[in-house]
């Protein structure tokens, strides 16, 4: 009898091991499939970018004289703002010493670097003469130009995040904290400045105004919280690691911060609308295309509902503990916020600058829809960010140092 039982147990154990083996194999395959998918997006993006350069933006892009900034700019903004938000949210732990957040540090810093590089990839193909940029941004800077500061501050953020990551790897925590602190300064400055990039264009009523910087900071941190939850859960899903309690706790507080940030961003979105609707004709026209016109689906369904309201409900329901609900919430946010940036950039240009002249050429709204090249390059940037992130999980062994 005893013999039989033990052999049964052994059988079950073998069976269990087999199952675990299969599970492991599936995870491994999923990882490589994900990596391959990202690599393909990236390579296609590179090809589209090079092709666009060779035939000229006039043919390759749908951005025009009237709408000079298309989806490439909005994707760039999306990616660098996610990076910035990741930097700020994760710094609550490793820079400002809130212990709960500390397990997120290494992966988050790496994630910030990855998304920044994705953003730089997109802007590289958007700028007509990127090589001139490398030279003249340095030798002929214009300090009154918010765009100049944007490049410089995001360059600085990239630098500090890179340095911080290296220090974290080497276990030099004091130095990492110092670099992280500088990163936070660069990150906050970059966001307020990004507000100025749009908010200081007095010829564009939709953007003009003092709300932009604060709106950017709130919504950036919101997207940062979403990205941290999304990518951390993804990393654990793809590796065969059990989540450590410290990490669970870290995600729980991130989810709580996320809730707060969604509410703040919703509040500023509404406030901007209310103030905007009391503005001039050109501005209300743009707002109406967002609220009830061409961009209403983007706005109400994608930006508001998918990007903020449903995730808010899910995060509240999850209590920061149901990883499954949090994963869905973070995925929806990453998706919806993309359209938040798109709408902001595009709708800001739909009202022609000469609208008030009342001439027939500029009587209506200008439309823009991204071209194939523009879409592929945008996806290429997202692919590059994903590729770097996933590769990092392998190379740095799941950023294990973080749980020390």
């Amino acid at each position: 009898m005893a013999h039989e039982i033990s052999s049964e147990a052994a059988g079950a154990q073998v069976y269990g091991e087999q199952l675990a083996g299969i599970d492991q194999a599936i995870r491994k395959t999923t990882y490589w499939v994900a990596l391959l998918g990202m690599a393909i997006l990236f390579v296609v993006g590179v090809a589209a970018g090079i092709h666009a350069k060779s035939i000229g933006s006039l043919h390759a892009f749908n951005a025009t004289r009237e709408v000079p900034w298309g989806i490439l700019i909005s994707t760039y903004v999306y990616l660098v703002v996610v990076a910035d938000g990741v930097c700020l949210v994760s710094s609550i732990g490793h820079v400002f010493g809130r212990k709960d957040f500390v397990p997120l540090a290494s992966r988050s810093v790496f994630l910030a670097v990855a998304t920044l590089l994705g953003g730089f990839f997109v802007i590289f193909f958007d700028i007509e003469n990127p090589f001139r940029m490398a030279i003249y941004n340095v030798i002929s800077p214009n300090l009154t130009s918010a765009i100049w500061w944007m490049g410089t501050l995001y360059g600085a953020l990239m630098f500090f995040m890179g340095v911080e990551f290296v220090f974290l790897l080497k276990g030099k925590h004091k130095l990492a904290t110092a670099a992280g602190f500088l990163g936070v300064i660069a990150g906050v400055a970059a966001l307020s400045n990004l507000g100025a990039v749009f908010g200081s264009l007095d010829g564009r009523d939709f953007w003009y105004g003092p709300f932009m910087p604060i709106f950017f900071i709130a919504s950036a941190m919101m997207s940062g919280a979403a990205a941290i939850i999304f990518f951390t859960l993804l990393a654990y899903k793809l590796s065969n690691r059990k989540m450590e309690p410290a990490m669970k706790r870290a995600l729980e507080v991130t989810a709580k911060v996320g809730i707060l940030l969604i509410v703040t961003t919703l509040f500023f979105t509404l406030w901007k609308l209310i103030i905007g609707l009391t503005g001039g004709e050109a501005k209300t026209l743009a707002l109406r295309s967002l609220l009830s016109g061409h961009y209403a689906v983007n706005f109400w369904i994608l930006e508001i509902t998918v990007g903020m309201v449903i995730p808010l409900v899910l995060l509240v329901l999850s209590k920061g503990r149901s990883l499954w609900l949090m994963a869905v919430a973070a995925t929806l946010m990453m998706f919806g916020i993309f359209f938040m940036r798109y709408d902001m950039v595009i709708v800001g240009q739909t009202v022609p600058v000469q609208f008030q002249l009342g001439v027939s050429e500029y009587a209506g709204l200008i439309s823009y829809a991204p071209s194939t090249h523009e879409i592929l390059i945008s996806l290429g940037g997202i692919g590059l960010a994903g590729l770097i992130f996933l590769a990092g999980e392998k190379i740095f062994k799941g950023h294990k140092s973080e749980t020390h």
Partner: protein
Amino acid sequence: MTDSKKIPEEPRQDEQQSGIDTGPGQSPKAGTRKSGPGETGGVTEMERRQFLKIGLAITGVFAGGTLLSAASVIDNVFASEDDYAEKYPYRPHYSMLIRQSNCIDCERCLEACKRTNHVPEYGYRTQILKKDYPESSGRTVEFIPVLCNQCNNPPCVRACPTRATYKDETNGIIRMDNSKCIGCKTCMSACPYNARYFNEETMAVDKCNFCYDTRLSRGEALTACAEACPAGARIFGDLSDPGSEVYRQVHDIEKAVWVLRPETGAKPNVFYTKG
């Protein structure tokens, strides 16, 4: 960024105060001003006086632009007469007056511009806009030539990261240094007048520069468009020269003169008037 939203409405300094040396472009203009009788562009002389008394610029909506009465036009373009001398000491101070109702949309100016400045077919430096007045009993359509306003407070220059676009310190023209242009298109977003486009031939943003390189610097007195116009719709000249046609018309109190979109604070050097 700081003063760009201000449309200066400070009280005009005493109208009589004109003898002081005010530098280039300052003639004893206030003193030579006569008040005209009757109505100008919908603002009665009475209204004008009253506004002046309380020190406000007269503005109103008028044919596609905001009306600045002749008395206030300089104030709206330059902060004040003294500021003008100090901040915009251009000599010559190139400027253009569009006599809107003279334009017959023959588009000879557009052709001349394209030819002179090698403007590709997908781009333009100047344009003729059409405005319908369906209710009007007379002429039901009006043509409004537009071009770069060579702004005194240019949003494009402020926004350009590499100083590829800049204001010429001698003559006030907004020019391009093509080799520095990175093609970020920020200036195109920043310009409140849609005056810029990306030129794939030069791989830089292109815009009207009053034909500086192609004509003015070669000794020509007029821009290609002004020369080509058969109807006298584009008066080009030196705003710092009291003897010039632009100067006289812009300072003529009997004329309603305005600029486009003054609320952006860009302070254009292209003025508009009827006939």
